[in-house]
């Protein structure tokens, strides 16, 4: 575990972020701040709107109101792709990969996009071996190099989760949103993913959405609790753990499950 | 002045009669597409088969026209169930391209099959074979209106009312609405969407057959290329109305039916232009259709 101290500079901020589908409010005036180098967890019961919140931040969903700031710039109306280019990167709760392609090709698409060569059409992929080498290098970092030539569909789910993370790293994020990175992974394999997350470069501000409280308390220095689309509490793990309201709403719900 | 009024009324009434036909055939397509989210280009084939069954029973066997329509409905609904259970279910989870091509394949085969069974010549129901109340004109005072088209409007109205009632007031209707809205959610509430879909598919195929039978007189006869000739218009009605939306399908049919009829009336050459132009504009402004849910 890296000892990372909040430098106090907000990297990602939302102010009064709202989203409703008709009469259904899935995000209610969410004010949220993620500091540079943070290790921050977002928790909440099922249906609390955690993934919606991530989608609003990344621009996958248009907000009904409120603003998103990245490193001080208002990005509320920047496209999803534009936000990625500015260093706001996410992984998906359910693997969202190029299933018909090989692991290396998956990485290649991210690297070439990030390197700004993806729109070139007159020369072949092979004319830029550096981009391919970089994709391979990322696979090595996550010990996926032996799977490089395999199709995504041939990989066990846990290793597919690693590819999700490798793609995110290929985009050199300043802010990384991990949406339940270990979801669906057998517990025997989940340590691979947790190790990968622990090994993330310190300078990246990380927001992790997670159900497993062990992971949250091990990883996070700060926790935000989301309930029914609204922020219930934010604080250190100790503060959250002793917060009566959180216990009744969140842990109480966990008790039922 | 009186003549203008009479002309306008005639165009409107002819347009509405055509619109009712479009609605009866398209509504089943709209619900099945809304329910399963799959693209079915072969819906017109069911209408075509329905038409041939009707014409054969009426002209060949001397069956009463209305009874023939009922039989066509039942026969094609059964055919729909068989096809759905044996072929269609394999492609629900396939990519859109596969669905498009698969159903075009079905259209081709249906055209061939119909030609084998009935041959290439256009079929019509001779007027004497129709019940008396469907022949001749109704005198509306200021103009004459064909009794058959009046019946078409009436039949359309009854079917619209029945469908609305069925969908809004019955348990099955509520299940269909829930499944169109959110299939996964409906399934988790214990609705058997597979069963539901087979049922809706049968009903939709039957309705198409009904439309096919009713349409023979209105579309000026029946040919084996029917399934191709009208493939686009049914899809347009569904897309303009919004997938899975009965009200949308109804208003889209009305809009397009009247525009198409009026267009062809005022501009005998070039009239077909309007319907595609309107479609383009509507879908441009509202990609989800007039009454479709956004997103």
């Amino acid at each position: 575990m890296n000892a990372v101290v909040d430098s106090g500079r907000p990297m990602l901020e939302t102010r009064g972020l709202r989203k409703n589908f008709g009469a259904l409010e899935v995000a209610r005036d969410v004010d949220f701040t993620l500091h540079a180098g943070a290790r921050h967890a977002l928790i909440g019961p099922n249906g609390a709107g955690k993934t919606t919140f991530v989608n609003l931040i990344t621009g996958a969903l248009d907000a009904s109101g409120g603003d998103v700031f990245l490193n001080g710039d208002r990005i509320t109306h920047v496209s999803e792709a534009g936000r990625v280019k500015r260093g706001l990167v996410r992984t998906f709760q359910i693997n969202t990969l190029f299933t018909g392609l090989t692991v290396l090709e998956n990485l290649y698409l991210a690297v070439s996009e990030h390197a700004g060569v993806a729109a070139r059409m007159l020369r072949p992929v092979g004319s830029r071996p550096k981009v391919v080498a970089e994709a391979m290098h990322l696979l090595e970092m996550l010990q996926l190099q032996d799977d490089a030539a395999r199709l995504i569909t041939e990989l066990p789910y846990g290793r597919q989760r690693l590819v999700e993370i490798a793609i995110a790293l290929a985009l050199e994020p300043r802010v990384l949103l991990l949406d339940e990175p270990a979801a669906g992974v057998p517990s025997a394999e989940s340590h691979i993913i947790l190790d990968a997350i622990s090994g993330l470069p310190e300078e990246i501000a990380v927001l992790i959405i997670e159900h497993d409280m062990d992971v949250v308390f091990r990883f996070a220095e700060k926790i935000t609790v989301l309930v029914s689309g609204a922020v219930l509490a934010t604080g250190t793990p100790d503060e959250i753990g002793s917060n009566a309201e959180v216990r009744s709403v969140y842990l109480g719900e966990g008790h039922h499950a | 002045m009186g003549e203008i009024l009479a002309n306008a009324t005639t165009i409107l009434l002819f347009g509405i009669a055509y619109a009712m036909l479009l609605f009866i055939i398209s509504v089943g397509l709209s619900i099945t597409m809304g329910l399963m989210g799959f693209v079915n280009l072969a819906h017109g084939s069911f209408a075509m088969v329905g038409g041939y069954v009707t014409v054969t029973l009426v002209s060949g066997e001397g069956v009463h026209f209305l009874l023939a329509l009922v039989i066509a409905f039942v026969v094609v609904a059964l055919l729909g169930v068989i096809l759905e259970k044996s072929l269609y279910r394999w492609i629900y989870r396939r990519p859109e391209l596969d669905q498009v091509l698969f159903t075009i394949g079905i259209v081709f085969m249906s055209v061939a099959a119909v030609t084998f069974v009935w041959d290439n010549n256009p079929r019509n129901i001779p007027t004497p074979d129709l019940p008396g109340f469907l022949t001749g004109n109704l005198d509306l005072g200021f103009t004459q209106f064909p009794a058959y088209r009046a019946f078409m409007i009436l039949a359309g109205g009854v079917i619209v009312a029945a469908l609305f009632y069925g969908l809004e007031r019955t348990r099955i209707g509520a299940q269909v609405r829930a499944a169109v809205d959110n299939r996964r959610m409906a399934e988790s509430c214990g609705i058997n969407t597979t069963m539901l879909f087979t049922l809706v598919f049968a009903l939709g195929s039957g309705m198409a057959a009904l439309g096919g039978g009713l349409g023979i007189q209105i579309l000026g006869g029946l040919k084996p290329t029917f399934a191709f000739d009208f493939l686009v218009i049914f899809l347009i009605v569904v897309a303009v109305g919004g997938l899975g939306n009965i009200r949308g399908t109804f208003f889209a049919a009305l809009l397009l039916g009247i525009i198409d009829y009026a267009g062809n009336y005022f501009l005998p050459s070039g009239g077909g232009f309007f319907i595609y132009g309107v479609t383009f504009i509507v879908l441009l402004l509202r990609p989800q259709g007039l009454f479709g849910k956004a997103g």
Partner: protein
Amino acid sequence: MADANMTPQPSPAVQQLLRRHRFRVVELLPWIAAIAVFYLFPGYRLLATQVLVLILFALSVDLIVGYAGIVTLGHTAYFGTGAYAAALLARPEWQETLWNVGAQPLVGIAAGTVAGALLGLISGWIILRTRELTLLMLTLALTFLLHELAKDIDGLTGTLITGGFDGINFTMNPILGIFEFDPIFYSTNYWYAFAVLVVGFLIVRTIVNSPFGATLVGIRENVRRMHAVGSPVQRRMLMVYVISCAIAGLAGAVWVQVQDNVTIAVYEFELAGAILIMVILGGTGRLYGAFIGVLVYMILENLTETVLGTDPPYWELVVGGALVLTVLFAPRGLLGIGEDVSTMLGRKRR
């Protein structure tokens, strides 16, 4: 993160990606076959010429359907527009006004290409903002719209422009002033179509092997992920759409030039459907699928009609059956079957 000190291992996966664009000897086969057909079957040259042009058209369709995953049923809109652009330019009555260059074949194909691209840009800008059924309907509506326009514009304007149902007949000037079109033996026509196909094919091949081509496959495989890696998906789709429409326009122009006439058949939905069928029969997203698909389709059609006749529509039965079977059992087309067989043989050998 880019670590210059890392020496990349020459892993097979990397090698495979780096070498994918290289020409293989087997790729010469279709071209040798095309040359052989000219000499072996002189009686079928018109059909063979049509096959060459349709292969180019199929390649343009494969680029958006097979690679980018945009399902369209209306690509004849662009093919037909290219066709009419070339044909209108070549109209005998207008030659004086057009400084007598309208009937120059190269001027015609330039015009067809530009016309296809322009229409692709305008319509694509609109159409590509929608998805699924709506997108499909818009492509269909556009094709039908243009079909009606080509059919009725003479009546609407009271002047002779497209010739309605009958179309336009014209005579092309010699290519570059040297090679005269040959309405009897079709030899110049064949080599002309052959040359255009070679050029068109090389363009498409270059594009699909480029980083841009890779992003198209990415869009097809997973649009959400493409957005999330920062790809301007909309712009990429429009770009490939315009390229595809330009090539379709080019194919349309050559189609009418080698036959000395145009009719509204070039706008027909049946052709749009047929070309899509050819692409899937051969195998989508596979370059040579277009070659195999068009060839098999045309041969099958000819065989069926010669052997079984046209009256009971055996052809509809054959093509419908082929389509259903392909989708159910060989969704990757004939080339896909070929790939499976060759992997199986490879395993056995090992």
